[in-house]
């Protein structure tokens, strides 16, 4: 075990995979988003110069180039920066990357990684705060990974690079500088295996990305008032670990889903709908969604915080649910 930041863990995974496989290429954009985490990548730039491509501001074409190259087995990691920019490449990701394997009846596959930084970053305002996970999940053929801590970031990134599917790797600006223990050596974390980040008997909190951090904070407060929350970190949406969700709800009888996307057709909607369909009799109370409010993200950091799900709101919602 060593202690690393989220950003360092991510870069370590990329570094390892570039060492292990000469077919891994990196489009050198702003992997860590804005804010100075790019230093971590200097050694990669130095050692793999011929596999590093400096991008123009052309999200659509680069996403499709990564897709075309993937058809010949090149595994391109394309960090698109702020998740909002991904909408410029929406067609290419959904209709080409996400569909080629199916359309070819399995003859080609698309091992490309699209890395984005989602969510409420502290001043991103309307056009730099997107959480695209819900929209992406509606499209077949795309794997979606969402780490919440350095150890998961590393293991999931390794899996993303090695996966033969297009993977959208959704990070959060506010996770980048957080530290955590990371196992020594190379290890992969398979997609589709949720992690119970905290065990508890009273309420199941399903979360992803930064909201897992918020949920863990909230759990401490809740514990003080006698509510033990079980925290299910999905880690990947595609594939989804439905069993982990249902098992936990079976135990607690109460479901709260926390999600940074706006409520309609969100990840929270999907988890609640899945449990309603497959485990309604497990529920002692109606399930609760906790989303970003159904508005755009205002520039002001205080209002941004008000708009997003946050620790206080999780506490409040869990109390109401258990009360």
């Amino acid at each position: 075990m060593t202690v690393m930041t989220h950003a360092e863990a991510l870069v370590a995974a990329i570094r390892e995979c570039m060492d292990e496989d000469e077919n891994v290429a990196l489009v050198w954009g702003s992997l860590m988003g804005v804010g100075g985490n790019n230093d971590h990548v200097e050694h990669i730039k130095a050692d793999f110069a011929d596999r590093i491509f400096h991008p123009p501001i052309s999200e659509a074409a680069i996403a499709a180039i990564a897709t075309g190259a993937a058809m010949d087995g090149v595994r391109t990691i394309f960090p698109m920066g702020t998740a909002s920019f991904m909408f410029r490449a929406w067609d290419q990701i959904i209709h080409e990357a996400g569909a080629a394997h199916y359309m070819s009846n399995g003859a080609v596959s698309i091992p490309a990684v699209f890395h984005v930084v989602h969510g409420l970053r502290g001043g991103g305002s309307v056009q730099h705060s997107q959480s695209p996970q819900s929209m992406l999940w509606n499209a077949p053929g795309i794997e979606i990974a969402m780490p919440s801590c350095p150890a998961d970031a590393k293991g999931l990134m390794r899996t993303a690079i090695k996966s033969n599917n297009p993977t959208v790797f959704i990070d959060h600006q506010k996770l980048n500088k957080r530290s955590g223990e990371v196992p020594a050596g190379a290890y992969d974390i398979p997609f589709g295996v949720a992690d119970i980040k905290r065990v508890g008997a009273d309420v199941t909190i399903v979360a992803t990305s930064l909201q897992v951090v918020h949920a863990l904070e909230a759990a401490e407060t809740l514990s003080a008032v006698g509510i033990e929350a079980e925290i299910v970190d999905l880690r990947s949406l595609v594939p989804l670990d439905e069993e982990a969700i249902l098992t936990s709800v079976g135990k607690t009888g109460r479901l709260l889903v926390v999600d940074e996307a706006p409520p309609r057709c969100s990840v929270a909607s999907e988890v609640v709908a899945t449990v309603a369909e497959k485990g309604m009799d497990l529920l002692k109370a109606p399930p609760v969604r906790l989303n970003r409010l159904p508005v755009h993200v205002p520039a002001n950091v205080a209002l941004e915080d008000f708009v997003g799900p946050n620790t206080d709101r999780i506490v409040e919602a869990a109390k109401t649910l258990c009360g």
Partner: protein
Amino acid sequence: MDKARLLDIFRHMILIRRFEEAVYDFHEQKLFGGHYHLYIGQEATGAAVMASLGAEDRIFSTHRNHGHLIARGVDPKNALAEILNRADGTNGGRGGTFHIADASVGMPHTSALVGGSVPLAAGAGFAAKLKKSGGIGVSMFGDGCFEEGVVFETLNLARMWELPVIFVCENNTPGAVLKSAGGNNTSNLPEGRVIQIPEALGMECHKVDGGDAEAVDVLFADCAARVRATGQPIFIEALTERWPGNYFSFPSMVTGVTQVSMAWDGGSISGEHQEWFLNHDPVLRFARQLLVSGVANFGDIVGIDVEVTETIKAAKEFAQSSPLPGTDSVYAHVLAGEG
């Protein structure tokens, strides 16, 4: 002048023509649904381009893909089966006319979105560069693609990243019947503003009569060799007079089934489309060239036609007797498994 090579190009051209006539026939028989597009009138470009490409090269096409696939060597049996959405189709029947692809011949994916496959071809160039495979990426696309910004982005990227790619824009707006009627199946760029765009980016650019197989072959062979040597992209605008049957969404066989004898029997040409038969039909044009230059005689031409006609006849039978994929098959290949 390589006789075998020219005859091979001709063989592919007439094979495409017979293939497209078969597709039209299938559609008339309502054997497949949806709209579709034929490559009639553009055979010279597709067939001549493929003559210089090898196993390491990758070609990406569009909604108007049949000719490129046939010229590249996909089996007409499987291509026709795909158009009928049958189990023996190149894509197991799930792609259909829009998406026929065959990775085994280096055509891994066909996008039916305008401009969709242009950056994919650049991606093949990217892969070739990274793997030092010696291959090149080739993008076959229509003039309408220039209206989509992603195509411009791709041209810029190919220059910037020095990708070994040849962009072949088949400009079939000349002669477009529906342009004045407001059809959108043709580009709206200011007249003659196609090649100017890659030129503005400083890319090596060429213009060629896309209806002249030999001219395309000579130019493309040269370009392909240079892209392999330099790794720099090249752009080619192939001007092809639009086939009169190329309507907005559904083609119409207004020029009838091709009689190769029209190449030498001028008397048999008359009617509304006389001008097209005499000056533009690339199959007839090339047949005349081969005859005049002594590469082929009437018998050779007829012989090739008989042979490919047989091939297509057998392919039609194969396609029609191929089973539909079972409903259970729809679940397969949403996600790929482990390597």
